[in-house]
């Protein structure tokens, strides 16, 4: 059992638990067992004791009752005679005495308590002694009619006796009392044996021992009333199932049960010593204890074993888990309990196995990773180097845009460094030869430099790596030049001391423009990555070279552009001048100024050409002119073919004079002299042509010799055209101005004429009509009847003339465009109504119906209401004029934004062929009609003019003989407002 302590808490727990469990169970069962045994025993005991007690009680009772009965029987005498009775009784009594040795004495008392008869073994008999025993307890007690039993008394201090007093007879009974020797009872009692040392004893109603197997105990007259069992029994005499543990009479503990002797009030106790009583139990107890102990021991064992069996695997698990957890992933838990623990163990094992695997794979992965990282790191370092180199180169490129040298130097240096080579070099190819432009290396001896100088420049060939690269346009990598059959530069290689070489061509748009070459000391000294790097460098070199080239090109282009811009600006200015200023002088001055500037001349001049005179005069605009020369030029006419201007004009093309001071070339002596004086040498003339005709010449003079560049000449031609435009514009403008003035004058005259005409014509008419009216108005007194008619005729003629004049003037005004409409809002209803009102008398006089029809809701019109009245008056008046009978209707309606007037009549109508010319001036249907109907023939044309001024239309629908309807359609509102 060693190792108990070594095993842990679980074990102890299990052991304890199991032990407790099993032990507890055992204990329990033992206890229960014992208990039940006890009870059983007790019950048996009770039964037994009770039986004995009862038996004893019964016998004693029987004994006593027997005596009682015998006594009573003895009293029974068949004799009524007292004496005889007494005699008989005596006999009976003696017999009784003889028969029952227990009875010691019998006495008969008469109802008064006097002794009638006494028979005794011990004492002398008494017959009729009449001793008064009325106060004797034997007498008293029976008074109640029942047999009384006296308490036990002792004779001679050692003999227990009992008195049984039996009442006899009705009424006042006689008493027969017997003294009973209780030895018999003792005999009874002493015969009873309970078990080995169990016995029965009797106790009287006082609790005094009256019978006991051991007589001496009785003779002691022990009062046992104090004993608990006595007390209990006396308390409940009839209780029968009590077995009490009580002090034994002979000491010790005993088990007692009792039975009551009712009549005597005595109690019979059956007593058995405890030990003896429960002797059977002992065995059981012992057995139980043995079993218990054994059982306990077994249980301990069992529990230990069980616990061990349980705990072991768990410990195994625990240990195993601990070890696995600690890292011993190879450890496997070995549990073969064939139950869940085994399963758990397996699970652990599986987990451990998995962990092992994981770890293993993890370790592998980590290793891999580390390797990868290391690799990556190395790569990164390399890349960084490359990057640094590249950015360095780029920095140089961007900082020196115009100079390639620093760039190629940097490239060469970096190529050398990063390829860990012997030398690094940059070469250029100009299309024919390869040149060295940069070389980097640790040191170059004179010998090396010499050999290089001898080799380069060299044409592309396959003999050298660089040459081969340039020739083929591909990367050339020679791991060992000694192994390369085509390699020719071995002495260079020896001088520099290299065996491997890589040359990367610099390609610009696919064409090689150089190469970057690195040499290495060892064989195959260059990795793919390094070659890649060289390619990058080569590209950068290309960029650098290109940059420089582009930059120089850009510069030249920029300067060219600047020039063009200048020229364009000048041109722009000139065009603007031409289009904005009509002042010829200003324009020409601008043109010449720009021309002089752009041609880098000293001064310029424009001549106007007079075609008729065939000579140049009138120099217009001169810039930078010497005043003396100006004067000369102004005053000296140049003829066609002479001088710069003349020659140019004759040629109709730009003409250059190389040297105007040369007599041979320049023929206008006067001017030549001046030129010489001022110092002008070369001249350019540009003709100003307008529609093939020479209008003038632009001349530019320079103080330097030499020709004007074609670009300048071109430019100047453009200027020349501009000048022409300017001149023409000026001319046109002059003409327009003149014409305008003329028109203006004409218009003024016309208005003047109209005004004065109007006034002149109307003034006399005013007199004619006025006076006539006054005469007719009786200002000059009564008018003779005969004069009425002629005067009326004069009036109407005058009115007619007036109308004619008005019409003519109206027409003229309209023609002259002097007619203006007075625009205002006016009511169509009112317009039509005023026409109707004016013409009503006339219509009535002709018997014609004149109706109007204008919708009430017609909105206000906007136009010249007065003129509309005039038009409607004209049309309606005509309608009335040309209608013999019937009606004339004037109506107006609105159609959208158009106002339509209608004047319809039932007159003579108009022939189709006359309608076209109806609205022309001075036409009327017919000369005859004119005379019959009157009218000026002007009305319709004027109406049409007015309607047209109103932006409207007038037309007629007519049928000869059926009547006519004239329409005027005008916008309701001339101000653009809608009818809304």
């Amino acid at each position, binding site marked *: 059992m060693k190792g108990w302590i070594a095993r842990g808490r679980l074990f102890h727990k299990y052991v304890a638990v199991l032990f407790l469990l099993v032990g507890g169970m055992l204990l329990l069962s033992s206890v229960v067992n014992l208990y039940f045994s006890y009870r059983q025993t007790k019950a048996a005991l009770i039964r037994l004791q009770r039986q004995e007690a009862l038996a004893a009680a019964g016998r004693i009772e029987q004994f006593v009752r027997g005596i009682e009965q015998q006594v009573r029987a003895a009293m029974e005498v068949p004799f009524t005679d007292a004496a005889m009775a007494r005699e008989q009784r005596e006999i009976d009594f003696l017999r009784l005495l003889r028969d029952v040795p227990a009875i010691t004495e019998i006495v008969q008392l008469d109802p008064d308590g006097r002794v009638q008869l006494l028979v005794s073994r011990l004492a002398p008999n008494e017959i009729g002694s009449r001793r008064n025993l009325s106060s004797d307890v034997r007498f008293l007690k029976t008074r109640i009619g029942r047999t009384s039993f006296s308490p036990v008394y002792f004779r001679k201090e050692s003999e227990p006796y009992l008195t049984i007093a039996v009442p006899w007879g009705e009424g006042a009974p006689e008493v027969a009392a017997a003294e009973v020797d209780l030895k018999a009872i003792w005999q009874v009692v002493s015969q009873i044996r309970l078990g080995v040392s169990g016995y029965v004893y009797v106790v009287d109603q006082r609790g005094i021992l009256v019978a006991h197997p051991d007589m001496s105990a009785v003779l002691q007259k022990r009062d046992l009333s104090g004993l608990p069992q006595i007390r209990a029994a006396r308390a409940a005499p009839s209780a029968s199932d009590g077995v009490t543990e009580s002090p034994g009479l002979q000491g010790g503990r005993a088990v007692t049960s009792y039975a009551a002797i009712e009549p005597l009030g005595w109690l019979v106790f059956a007593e058995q010593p405890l030990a003896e009583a429960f002797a059977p139990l002992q065995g059981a107890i012992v057995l139980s204890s043995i079993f218990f102990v054994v059982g306990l021991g077994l249980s301990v064992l069992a529990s230990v074993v069980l616990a061990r069996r349980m705990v072991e695997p768990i410990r195994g698990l625990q240990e195993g888990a601990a070890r696995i957890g600690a890292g011993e992933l190879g450890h496997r838990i070995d549990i073969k309990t064939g139950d869940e623990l085994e399963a758990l163990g397996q699970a652990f094992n599986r987990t451990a196995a998995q962990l092992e695997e994981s770890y293993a794979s993890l370790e592998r992965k980590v290793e891999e990773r580390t390797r990868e990282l290391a690799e990556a790191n190395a790569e990164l370092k390399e890349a960084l180097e490359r990057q640094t180199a590249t950015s360095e180169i780029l920095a140089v490129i961007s900082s020196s845009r115009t100079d390639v040298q620093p760039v190629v130097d940097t490239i060469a240096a970096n190529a050398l460094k990063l390829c860990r080579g012997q030398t690094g070099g940059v070469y250029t190819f100009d299309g024919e030869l390869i040149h060295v432009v940069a070389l980097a290396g640790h040191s170059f001896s004179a010998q090396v430099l010499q050999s290089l100088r001898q080799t380069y420049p060299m044409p592309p060939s396959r003999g050298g790596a660089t040459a081969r690269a340039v020739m083929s346009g591909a990367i050339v990598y020679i791991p060992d030049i000694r192994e390369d059959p085509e390699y020719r530069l071995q002495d260079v290689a020896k001088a520099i001391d290299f065996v491997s070489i890589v040359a990367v061509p610099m390609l610009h748009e696919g064409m090689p423009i150089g190469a970057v070459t690195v040499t290495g000391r060892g064989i195959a000294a260059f990795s793919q990555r390094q070659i890649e790097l060289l390619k990058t460098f080569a590209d950068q070199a290309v960029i650098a070279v290109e940059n420089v080239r582009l930059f120089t090109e850009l510069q030249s282009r920029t300067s060219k552009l600047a020039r063009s811009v200048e020229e364009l600006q000048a041109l722009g200015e000139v065009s603007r001048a031409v289009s904005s200023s009509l002042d010829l002088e200003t324009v020409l001055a601008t043109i010449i100024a720009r021309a002089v500037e752009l041609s880098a001349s000293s001064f310029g001049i424009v001549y106007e050409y007079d075609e008729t005179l065939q000579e140049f005069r009138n120099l217009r605009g001169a810039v930078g002119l010497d005043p003396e020369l100006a004067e000369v030029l102004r005053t000296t006419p140049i003829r066609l073919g002479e001088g710069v201007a003349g020659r140019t004009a004759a040629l109709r093309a730009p003409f250059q004079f190389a040297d105007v001071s040369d007599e041979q070339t320049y023929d206008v002596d006067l001017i030549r002299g001046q030129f010489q004086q001022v110092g002008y040498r070369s001249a350019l003339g540009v003709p100003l042509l307008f529609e093939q005709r020479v209008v003038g010449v632009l001349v530019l003079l320079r103080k330097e010799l030499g020709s004007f560049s074609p670009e300048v000449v071109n430019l100047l031609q453009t200027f020349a055209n501009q000048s022409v435009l300017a001149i023409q514009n000026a001319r046109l403008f002059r003409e327009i101005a003149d014409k305008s003035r003329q028109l203006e004058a004409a218009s003024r005259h016309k208005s003047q004429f*109209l005004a004065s005409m*109007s*006034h002149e014509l*109307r*003034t006399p008419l*005013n007199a004619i009509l*006025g006076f006539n009216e006054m005469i007719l108005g009786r200002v000059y007194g009564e008018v003779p009847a005969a004069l009425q008619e002629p005067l009326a005729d004069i009036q109407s003629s005058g009115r007619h003339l007036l109308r004619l004049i008005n019409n003519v*003037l109206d027409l003229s005004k309209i023609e002259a465009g002097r007619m203006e409409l007075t625009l205002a809002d006016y009511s169509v209803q009112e317009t039509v109504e005023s026409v109707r009102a004016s013409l009503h008398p006339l219509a009535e006089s002709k018997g014609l119906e004149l109706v109007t029809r204008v919708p009430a809701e017609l909105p206000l019109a906007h136009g010249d209401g007065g003129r509309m009245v005039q038009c409607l008056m004209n049309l309606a008046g005509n309608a009335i004029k040309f209608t013999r009978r019937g009606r004339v209707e004037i109506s107006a309606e609105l159609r959208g934004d158009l106002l339509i007037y209608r004047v319809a009549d039932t007159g003579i109508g108009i022939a189709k062929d006359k309608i076209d010319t109806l609205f022309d001036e001075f036409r009327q249907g017919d000369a005859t009609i004119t005379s019959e109907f009157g009218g000026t023939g002007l009305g319709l044309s004027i109406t049409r003019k007015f309607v047209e001024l109103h932006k409207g239309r007038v037309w007629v629908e007519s049928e000869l003989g059926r009547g006519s309807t004239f329409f005027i359609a005008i916008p309701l509102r001339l101000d653009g407002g809608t009818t809304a």
Partner: protein
Amino acid sequence: MSAKTILYVEDNELNRKMLRHLLRGTSYRLIEAPDGESGMTMAREQRPDLILMDVQLPKISGIEATRALRAEPSTAGTPIIAITSFALSGDEQRAKEAGASAYLAKPYSPFALLEMIRRLAPEG
């Protein structure tokens, strides 16, 4: 009640005669001026109750004279009838702008003129 004075500024003798005859039957007193200048002087001096101004006048135009008369406090309130010749549109407008109280176009009905006179300067 004194008779109202009418000043007629007109260069045409016939027209003046016509008005003279016309006014014969009335209580109006007529004074005449042949041109604008004298017209203005007469207006200032004689303070007529009504001025008839012909627009078509030599030297100063009727419009100008009207304007001038309107500007002077003594004649500013005098009703002026401008007599236009209806030649060019705008005559009426100009007359109104100059300050004419009314206008009449030639040729006019003498009775129409009389009515206008009576309205602007009742006979009393």
